[in-house]
């Protein structure tokens, strides 16, 4: 046989071997985590009940209902809109594995963009999983992509024209759930997910909806609560109340002309009072050093420490790091403050719940303590 043919065969065998090895890892990401809802759960559903096109797809995210059985407000908490923002996901898991509502109802979607949990972003060198040592042993959680998987929605256009505003964004944003609201029943895969969540808000008559996120430490909008203008006073009151817990948050108003985001479209398209919260997450940052699962959990990065110590950048980063427990703590305490402020102004409907750790509990005992 000629030499070049032998080399071609050898190369083909190597390609198939490498593809097989990587395929094992990629396919492992498609298995969802086991979650353990608190006994107070009253119903489990999925997004396909609000958009039938999602049935059988990886966008058919799980929804957990906790109805106290007593009249009150309905609250929706969304984690995992961006699956690479782990504190949002884990905060929602802490809620669903502990919450006991006393008045009103909680609806929790821990992995809103469930498709994004099946892959990582290209060229980021991101880990696929991180583990937490909980009461039941080591639990593995996925660290996903910012956007829906390209296997579910491909190809990306060069320019994404947001429906219905026509606002033009980078083509990559077509798979970003937080640019896809209000969505449409027969739109792209991600628009269908957005549509399902909007339908859920309308059909379940959600009163308060909170979307949990993270961002890189160098982004100006971190440790913030972003509000639609109709709930700015509740947001402002929550920020001031959080100060009594020694937690500083910036308050931001949702820009009217930036379309597709949860805090804009939920507020414009439904009666709900929408809030979005951000914490600071070093693994998303451009300055970061080693990118691994330890960085997700510890939030401690040498390069960010250098940036703070040398005063090279104006960034918000604690030298002790931004561990997952603190980030989840901020989200949980922020949710409590928003709901307390809502209860202060709501004349007829309240939301009362218990068995959720405080920020101080999470710092002292670690987030793992509150996961089953």
């Amino acid at each position: 046989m000629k030499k070049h043919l032998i080399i071609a065969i050898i190369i083909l065998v190597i390609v198939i071997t490498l593809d097989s090895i990587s395929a094992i890892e990629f396919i492992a990401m498609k298995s969802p985590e086991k979650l353990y809802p608190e006994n107070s759960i009253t119903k489990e559903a999925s997004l396909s009940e609000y958009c039938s096109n999602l049935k059988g797809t990886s966008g058919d995210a799980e929804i957990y209902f906790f109805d106290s059985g007593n009249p009150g407000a309905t609250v929706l908490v969304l984690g995992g809109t961006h699956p690479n923002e782990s504190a949002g996901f884990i905060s929602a898991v802490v809620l669903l594995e502990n919450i006991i509502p006393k008045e009103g109802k909680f609806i929790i979607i821990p992995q809103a963009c469930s498709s994004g949990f099946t892959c990582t972003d290209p060229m980021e060198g991101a880990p696929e999983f991180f583990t937490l040592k909980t009461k039941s042993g080591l639990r593995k959680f996925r660290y996903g992509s910012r956007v829906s998987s390209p296997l579910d929605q491909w190809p990306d256009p060069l320019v994404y024209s947001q429906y219905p505003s026509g606002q033009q964004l980078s083509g990559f944003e077509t798979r970003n759930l937080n640019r896809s609201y209000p969505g449409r029943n027969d739109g792209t895969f991600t628009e269908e997910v957005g549509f399902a969540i909007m339908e859920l808000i309308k059909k379940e008559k959600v009163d308060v909806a909170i979307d949990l996120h993270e961002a890189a430490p160098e982004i100006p909008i971190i440790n913030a609560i972003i509000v639609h203008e109709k709930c700015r006073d509740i947001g402002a009151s929550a920020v001031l109340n959080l100060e009594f817990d020694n937690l500083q948050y910036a308050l931001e108003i949702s820009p009217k002309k930036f379309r597709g985001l949860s805090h804009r479209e939920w507020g414009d398209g439904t009666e709900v009072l929408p809030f979005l919260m951000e914490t600071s997450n070093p693994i998303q940052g451009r300055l970061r050093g080693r990118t691994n699962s330890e960085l997700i959990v510890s939030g401690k990065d040498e390069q960010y420490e250098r940036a703070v110590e040398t005063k090279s950048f104006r960034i918000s980063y604690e030298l002790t790091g931004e561990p997952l427990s603190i980030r989840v703590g901020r989200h949980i305490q922020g949710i409590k403050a928003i709901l307390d402020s809502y209860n202060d102004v709501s004349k007829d409907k309240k939301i009362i719940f218990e068995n959720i750790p405080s920020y101080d509990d999470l710092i002292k005992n670690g987030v793992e303590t509150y996961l089953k």
Partner: protein
Amino acid sequence: MLFWIYIIIVSIITWIVLVELFTERDWKKQIALAMLLIPFLLRIFQIK
């Protein structure tokens, strides 16, 4: 629809790369062709 068009495009390019892999005599270029094959096969088989 566009999805299937792109799958067909990727499949055609993969076939062309395979043909080139077996006809190319310079081993360095064969390795470069192999680097294209890795992600294309993963996309055709809907793994990544």
